[in-house]
Each structure stands twice: as C-alpha cells, then as structure tokens.
C-alpha cells in the first residue's frame, strides 16, 4: 500500500516478502453455504472453509472443509424459518462452535445471502467475534431481489447495518443488478449462480494478491492498515476478457460492470483495492496504465492496495478486480439554501422519514408495513443509512429527497423495482 504513489515501480520497492497469512472463509445460512461451496481456491492451500447453518439438509450439500450445525435446540435441524431474530439468538448462544474456526484467522471472509434468518442474524455476530479476535473481516453478501418480499428487503437492510459495524469492509451484491447482468433466459437460480461466481472471484482476487507469488504482491499489514477504519459504502467490480488485448478489454469490461454503475459521488473511494491477473505475457507497463485509469476513474485520494499476478492457466486472458471503500462519516447535505431560510433540504433521511410518515396516512399503505424497520435502522445511526445499498440505485437522483409512493422509491428505475430483465 502506498499513499499517493507515483508509479508501480515506487510501489514495487515497497514490497516486503510476506509470510503465510491465515485466510478463512465462512458461509452462513443457506445462501452462505452455497457461496462457500462454490469457491475455487485450489491454488491457495492455506485457505480453510466452513459452512454454518441450522438447516442440516443445506449443510449436507455443503462442500466446505468444515460444517458447523447450530440451533438444534430451536429448530430441530430445519433452519430458522427465515426469522432473523431466531437466527441472531442462535448464533449468539452458540458462537462457541464458530469461535474456534475464526479465532486463528488473520483474514476472514464472511459470506451470506441477506434476507433470511441464519445469514442475516448470524453473519454480524460471527463478524464481530472474528474482529474481536483480531481478524480483518471482509463480508461479501447478496441483497434480495426487489421482487422478494418487502420484509426480506427490510431484514437485509438492517443486517447490512449490523454487518458494517462488525466488518472491516462489507461488499453487498444486489441480486437485482446481477439479474441485469444475466442473459435473457436465465432463471433466478441461475442468477444466484452468477452472484456465487462474482463473490467467488472477489474472494479469490484478494487471496491472490496476498499470495506472495504474484508479480506485485500485497503485504497483509498494508491491507489491514488500509481497511482499518470502519468503512461505509463499498464498490466492487470485475472485468474479464480474452484475446489479443485482453488487459485493455478487461478494463473496458470492468468499466461497464453493472456493479460499478453507481452515482459519481459513490465512486469516490477512500480506499481502493485493485488486483490484476493475466497470462505470462502481462506487462508491467500495461498494468501501470490500467492502474492509472482506475485511479482517475475512482478519484481516490486515499490509500491504494494494488496487486498483480500471473496465472499460467490464463494465457490470453486478463481479469481486473476493484474493491473500494469510503470512510464512514456523515456527508453534509448537497443542497444550497435560499437566503434567510432554513435549509432547503434538511437531510435526505429526515425528509424520507417524513415522506414515509405521511405516506402511512394514505389509504394504500399496505405494502408499507415493514418500513418502520428502515426508520429504526436510521435512528440507530443516521450516517450508516447513507450507505445502505439501495441508494446506489437512484443514479441522478442520488442526493434528492426520496420519492416514496406505496412503499417504493420512484427514483429507483422501474425495471429494477419490477425485476424486469433488460437485454442489453
């Protein structure tokens, strides 16, 4: 890691030979176990994986090296029934079972699908436990489709807030955005497979850069320092290409990455992690170019963690992974004020609260029942709400008052809210 470095060479000089660091991956709940099962981390012998669930059936299909059954007392092996309170309670009471696995880790990846019971209730508890034990915690989680129930979305939003408190970085993947990335006839299941793949590639990228055998390796201490502050909104993007100019095309692919298609403001990452993987032909000059472009694009003034590796199995392929995090601090409202008046927009949150409150008075508020949860989350920490994933979906309207109608924010594109697949 360097602060405002001038070139890759500068950075190379900064390298120290890394010792083996202990990386562990834990999948929590049904989706989390699927995510952990799908990881292909063959190259990294040291990475231990575990699946945790109350659902014995889900665990029996899990391919992790360890399986941890929890909640027998409550659920008789049947899962938390989607109840996040139950999920949280079980995890808290039985954290002992997990502690042994997470305690030895330098770096822990927590994987879960938010919206259900075990993942949403349990992941924050596990992250906190690992963090207390001194691990750096990266949580990769999916957020429910908009067409899943409002209750699920609300559970996910709350869980995200909790998870952010307990992790060094939380990387949420919106299932809706991934659906947009899927091809026309893919089903929801196939879309889950997509998110599994994306998260897998994200985890792998980080492992790769820490691996020590790369062209440019990252010192774990630097990674740890870069993500030492509690981070708020994160961005995550992957680009991949094959062919003559694989690296250039991978960069193009990355810039089109749906996960990066968020408002300009949120692209300003305070901490940026970039990993480039390519075949033996990967040249340092080309990598330097990529780095420059990305640095400009994300206007990062803070720290950059950069890694580059050669993969013999990817002769004319290249892959770029970007993870960015912004520091968790409330941003001042963007609006200007007419002279002699109270602020034109107080804060998006209060106005949202007001809008929700006034909406509730209207006759068609049936869909709103689970909304108070969102408000609850805001009361706990207003600034955190700024980073709830949903906001990424408002684009041009990012900084404006929410446009609440029947429990939906009309500024979020209709196709996203309705789960309509766009065939780009």
């Amino acid at each position, binding site marked *: 890691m360097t602060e405002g470095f001038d070139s890759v060479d500068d950075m190379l000089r900064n390298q120290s030979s890394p010792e083996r660091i202990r990386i562990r991956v834990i999948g929590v709940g049904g989706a989390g176990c699927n995510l952990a099962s799908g990881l292909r981390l063959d190259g990294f012998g040291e990475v231990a994986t575990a699946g945790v669930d109350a659902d014995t059936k889900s665990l029996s299909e899990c391919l992790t090296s360890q399986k941890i059954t929890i909640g027998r007392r409550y659920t008789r092996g049947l899962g938390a029934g989607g109840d996040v309170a139950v999920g949280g309670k079980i995890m808290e009471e039985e954290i002992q079972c997990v502690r042994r696995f997470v305690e030895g880790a330098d770096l822990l990846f927590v994987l879960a699908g938010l919206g259900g019971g075990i993942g949403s209730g349990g992941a924050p508890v596990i992250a906190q436990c690992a963090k207390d034990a001194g691990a750096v915690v990266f949580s990769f989680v999916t957020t429910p489709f908009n067409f899943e129930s409002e209750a699920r979305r609300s559970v996910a939003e709350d869980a995200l807030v909790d998870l952010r408190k307990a992790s060094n970085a939380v990387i949420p993947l919106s299932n809706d955005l991934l659906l947009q990335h899927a091809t026309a006839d893919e089903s929801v299941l196939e879309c889950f497979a997509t998110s599994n793949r994306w998260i897998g590639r994200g985890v792998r990228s980080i492992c790769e850069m820490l691996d020590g055998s790369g062209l440019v390796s990252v010192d774990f201490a630097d990674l740890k320092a870069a993500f030492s502050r509690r981070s708020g909104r994160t961005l995550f993007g992957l680009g991949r290409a094959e062919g003559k100019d694989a690296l250039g095309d991978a960069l193009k692919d990355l810039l*089109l990455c749906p996960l990066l298609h968020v408002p300009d403001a949120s692209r300003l990452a305070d901490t940026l992690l970039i990993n480039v993987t390519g075949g033996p032909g990967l040249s340092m000059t080309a990598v330097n170019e990529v780095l420059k472009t990305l640095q400009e694009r994300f206007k990062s003034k803070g720290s950059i963690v950069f890694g580059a590796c050669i993969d013999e199995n990817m002769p004319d392929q290249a892959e770029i992974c970007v993870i960015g995090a912004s520091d968790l601090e409330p941003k001042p409202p963007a609006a200007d004020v007419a002279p002699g008046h109270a602020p034109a927009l107080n804060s998006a949150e209060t106005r949202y609260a007001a809008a929700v409150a006034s909406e509730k008075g209207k006759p068609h508020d049936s869909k709103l029942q689970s909304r108070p949860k969102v408000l609850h989350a805001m009361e706990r920490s207003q600034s955190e709400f700024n980073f709830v994933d949903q906001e990424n*979906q408002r684009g041009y309207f990012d*900084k404006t008052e929410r446009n609440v109608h029947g429990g939906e924010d009309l500024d979020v594109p209709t*196709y996203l809210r309705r789960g309509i697949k766009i065939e780009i």
Partner: protein
Amino acid sequence: MNKIIAAVEIGTSKMKVLLGEIRSQQALNVVGFGSIESFGVKKGELVNFKVASEQVHLAIDLAEKSAGVQAEEVYLSVTGSHLGGSFNLGSARVSSADNVVVRNDVARAIEEAKRKELLDDRIYVHFIQNPFHLDGRPVEDPLNLQGSLLEVGYWSVDGDEKVIKDLLHVINGYGLEVGHVIASSLASGEIATSRADRKAGALVIDFGAGATDYVLYRDGCAAKTGVVPIGGDHLTNDISMGLRVDERHAESLKKEHGRAFCGEEDDDLRVWLIGNKMIGDRDVSRKAIRQVVAARVEELFQILAEELEGYLEPDHLGSGIHLTGGGSLLPGITEVASSALGLPAKRAELPTGIVEELRNPEFATVLGLLHFGLTGQSQVNPVRSKGIGRALAKIFGR
C-alpha cells in the same frame, strides 16, 4: 394602456420566459422570448437556489433583450410533489321564505367550501370554483333561482409555503415582483384545451422533465389537479443505469430511439451510442432502451390511474386525454395513455396563431401563463373567465 407581463417557468430541463404585451386588456402579443438550460432544479423543485436563480435571471434577461422592453409583472408557474389539492363542498339552506336564492345564500355556501384550514407550513395557491348545485341539479348562476339547498364545490390547490417562497425569491432577486403564482397543470391545461373541450370534460397531462402535472376538467371547471414526481429525467436516468451509459448519451438515446411500449419487432436491432463509430462509441440494443422506457411509462400511467380513480368515466370526459410537455413527444405515449386510462388520447394541439417556434409542447406551461395574464386572474375561476376564449385567437400572432 399597454402592460408588459412575463410568464416564467422554472422548469427542470429549461428555464422558459415569455414576455407578453397586453393591449388594453383585450389582446396579447408575445414580444419577447428567453429559454435556457436549467440547473439546480430536480423533480420540479429547487435543489440549488443560487445556480437556479442565475439561470432564471439569464432567461428573463434574454427575453427582455429580445423584446427591447422590461417586464412589469411576473406570472410564475409552480410544480413539484409538494403541491396538494382537495375538494371541499359548501352548502347553504336557502333562507328566504319564497325559496329564492339571494346573494347571502351564495356567500354562505362559498364561505363554507373555503373554510378548511391548512397546516401551518402550507398555503393555498388556488381556489377553483366548480358548478353550483341547487337541490342537486347543476346551475350556472343560482342567483334568483328557486330551490332549498344550495351547494358549491371548490377544488383547492395548496403548496408548501417555503418552497413557494423560495421561488418568489428567485424572481425578486432579479428585481421583479411575482403578481401571480399558478400551478403548472392549470397553466398547461388552459392552453392545451379549448373551452369546448373543458366543457365536455378533458384530462390534460403535462409530462415534463422533472414531474408530470395533470388537470382534469369537468363541466368546464378544473375538478382535480395533481403532480406525479416522475418525468423525462426518470426515463433518462433509467436508461443511463440500465444500459450503463452516461446521462448525456442516455438523453439522446431516449429522444432518438425511445418508445413508450416495447414490441416484438424491436428484437435484435442495435443502435450506436454516439453515432460516429469512433473510439468510445459502442452499439446498444434498441429493445433494451424500449424495455426500460416502457416499464417507466407504464408505471407513470398506473399511478395516474390510481390518483384519478373515480374521475375517469368516459361520460364525463368527452374530450379525452390531451398530452403535452416535452415528454409527450415520446413515440407511442398516446397509445399507452389511452389503454392505461381507458380514454381516447392525443397530443394536445396548441392554438393556431402561435408562432411556430413556440408551438412546442415544452412551452405549454409558459403559454398558458400568458393566457392567464390576459385576464390577470390568479384564482382560477372559469365561471368568471368569459373573456379568455374569445381573446385566444388574437393572442399570439404578431
């Protein structure tokens, strides 16, 4: 006695100003015109006072320079989701022994209809009188008629006081007074329909950049108005996010290839983003553009249908739907409007005699404002605005 009035729309896409010269309160000539890109306005409301003010001032300045005269009074339109409205009924027992309606009965009925108090931070923008009913039967003027129960309804438009005051400040900053504040829906409505249309019943929808304003006329009177905070900017943003292109390109894709519905024949056609096929250009699917646009437009009309529930019986809306505002240029929009609302729909015809440059749906609101200026009325009261229809033909030709 000639008077110069300025019609000002602080639009989300453009600041639009027309200067009109009123000749002895009979006819009106458009003498000046200024239109300039809008900044600092989103969803019809100010989000950056300073920047928006500068643009409005530039537009007024342009209009004054082109006219070579200065405005004396401003007619200002207002839109945005802060606008609300309610229908209030007032009634009075006819007091005289012979059951003949006298002035006092009328006054009592009106007073009751207007009595409703607003919350502290809200103000009335319009009281719109709807027809009198005498013992349940509609009458144009109840005075001296016989009956026992006189009723009158008012459609009242109210808004957020602070938001409206901010708008007034913008104009004051140029050194002008705002004489009248008029809801965009009513301004557009008056120019987009004829008196006969309103008499037969009509729904005017102004699909702007930041918001969609509507007014529904029944028996010649505005019986309901409203604002749905969805506009052309939403289409643009949806395209930008859905196709991963920047706003500028999304806006031009929308105008060039957008359509309100998505059909089979759209399959497989790809269109160029920039069109020069140079570096940075790429092709995108036309179907994708239309999918995104169709979803949004369908939702807009669904919301309108919800808000207008109970008002859409074809019997009361003989003249159907009139679409205006820049968004009404979107191909296919009349078809979607018609099927969603169950009424015939067309693009509004602006009165002949308006110079070609201004016969554009984007100018419906400012044209409508001038129209109001001719009679100087701010309390929209169709019952008393007899002069307007007649004067219309003379208004805009030079």
